[in-house]
């Protein structure tokens, strides 16, 4: 994964003089903020062998509440806090349906996606929130030594998640459940509580992403977040998460997001027609996964 990122960086910086500039790298970083946050939540959910398709609309609903709060002059810190609060609430709904209702995650989150999307339509009532007050700028604008402070905040978040997976019982439980649900239950792992925690985390992170979205884009449309769930799954899987659960790589997810955005950015810089971007991105995704699988296969063969 690291190699893929390096390779892409080298290719694009040779192909375009503007790629490796501070300005452009900042653009890539800014575009990655919400995706990095949401992908972390998706990684956690994938770890327990689940999936959460609602993260995009959860982010949108959270953004809506943050935006509305700004419009009625709620102080910026309180308004920003609304994002994660709404996110946890919606994450609890998701957790409830999946854990209490015993509905398979893909079915549950697909259904909830529809419900939440109807909610955002109803909340917006056809009126986009546009040109929101710029008061959340301190979340995203400040830079330390030329690097946006957001980068440090997100790095801290990822280190925290990595720590949870590595050193806390919760992290161990998550991976155990993802690897073998029934066996973990028999081994005494509090499966229901751990799964609930996973979906709560996913919702919380989507809510945080919502606050950052409003800070960066100052608008909320019903299409807000509509592509982010699938992008997050792609990034997590690219990074090494197993779709069936039990194995994730937090660092891999971060690199997956960055590679994704580097590809999008590089294509525009070198002038690839917009429509080809998705074709090339899809092919590259397959190529990266194929080479990683080939390496694993070779290691397996060598071990014999």
């Amino acid at each position, binding site marked *: 994964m690291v190699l893929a990122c390096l390779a892409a960086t080298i290719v694009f910086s040779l192909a375009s003089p503007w790629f490796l500039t501070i300005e*452009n790298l900042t653009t890539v970083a800014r575009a990655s903020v919400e995706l990095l946050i949401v992908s972390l939540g998706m990684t956690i959910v994938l770890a327990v062998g689940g999936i959460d398709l609602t993260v995009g609309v959860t982010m949108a609903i959270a953004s809506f509440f943050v935006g509305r709060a700004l419009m009625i002059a709620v102080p910026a810190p309180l308004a920003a806090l609304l994002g994660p609060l709404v996110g946890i609430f919606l994450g609890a709904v998701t957790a409830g349906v999946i854990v209490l209702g015993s509905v398979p995650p893909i079915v549950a989150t697909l259904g909830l996606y529809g419900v939440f999307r109807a909610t955002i339509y109803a909340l917006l009532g056809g009126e986009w929130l546009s040109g929101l007050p710029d008061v959340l700028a301190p979340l995203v604008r400040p830079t330390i030594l030329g690097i946006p402070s957001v980068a440090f905040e997100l790095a801290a978040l990822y280190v925290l998640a990595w720590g949870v997976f590595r050193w806390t019982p919760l992290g161990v439980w998550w991976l155990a459940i993802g690897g073998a649900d029934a066996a973990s239950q028999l081994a005494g792992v509090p499966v229901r509580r751990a799964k609930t925690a996973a979906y709560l985390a996913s919702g919380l992170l989507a809510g945080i992403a919502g606050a950052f*979205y409003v800070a960066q884009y100052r608008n909320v449309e019903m299409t807000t*977040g509509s592509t982010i769930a699938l992008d997050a799954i792609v990034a997590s899987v690219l990074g090494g998460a197993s779709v069936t659960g039990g194995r994730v790589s937090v660092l891999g997810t971060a690199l997956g997001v960055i590679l994704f955005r580097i590809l999008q950015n590089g294509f*525009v810089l070198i002038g690839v*027609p*917009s429509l080809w971007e998705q074709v090339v991105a899809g092919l590259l995704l397959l190529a990266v996964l194929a080479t990683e699988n080939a390496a694993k296969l070779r290691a397996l063969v060598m071990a014999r």
Partner: protein
Amino acid sequence: MFRGKLLAYAAAALVLSTSAWAQGKPKVAFIPQLIGIPYFNAMEAGGKKAAQAFGVDFIYQGPVDTNPVDQLQILNNLVDQGVQAIAISVLDASSLEPVIASAKKKGVIIFTSDSDAPKSGRAVYVAQARDDQLGFTIIDELVKRVGDDAKIGIVSGEATATNLNTWIKYMQQRVKEKYPKIKLLEPKYAGGTAQRAAQLATELMTANPDLKGIIAVASTTCPGVAQAIETAGKINKVIVTGYCSPNTARAYLKSGAMGFTVLWDPAELGYLTVWAGKQLIDKKPFAAENNVPGIDHPISYDSATGVLLLGPPAVFTAENVDKFNF
């Protein structure tokens, strides 16, 4: 026993008579490209007003994302329901022809509004402003502000939307004919999200440091592109314009990120659409100049192309934007 039967017959008669009465009111439907956005909401409001004025039942249904397949499904549903006149803002012109043909057999009239499918056999196209005038006006106004040898970028929405592509085509034509020194870049497609539009706009500015203007073609791309200018700190260095509603553009017109926007009144367009539907149901032909009750200027009709035209495009700037609310 006798009373029971009497009641049953009375109830049946009541139901039949109300349904017959309900069938008496002609039904006109409008299918937008996407529901829940201010632009089409305004069209819906105009359509409802016309429905009341002209005594029709107005049905408004659309897809929840700019997906042509979903839109066609809704169209087929309405045709099966026996709605007499259905207007559609076309997402994919190529797939409309067979639907119109089979609808004609069922006595359903299909016409287009806001976005056309010219060769599909539709009864009429209710146009907001002439497509060529829309393309030309936006280029003319932008050149006034950036000079006639500048580089201009285009951020569009869906790659298949007929109306967006037609306007881009006329922009390119205008540049070729009147402003040969202008460099108009190939359009980039953002899909429906403001985030992608902002990202594309920023990347266009990075790849072209001498970029002077960006045109946001789809209304969903407007806030994203304008915000990208503000975030990059390029107000007054890069001028954004687009087919954006005054409400969406207001903050950016006032901050200077957007120089102006070009549009028309979608509520009037929705109103005209329902009127046209009623005319089609009543089999009244369109005259070259039509007086539509409720619209303050005559509406012209071109029988060669089958286009019913609302009027010339309007230009919104920081000075006049507060007079409008849509």
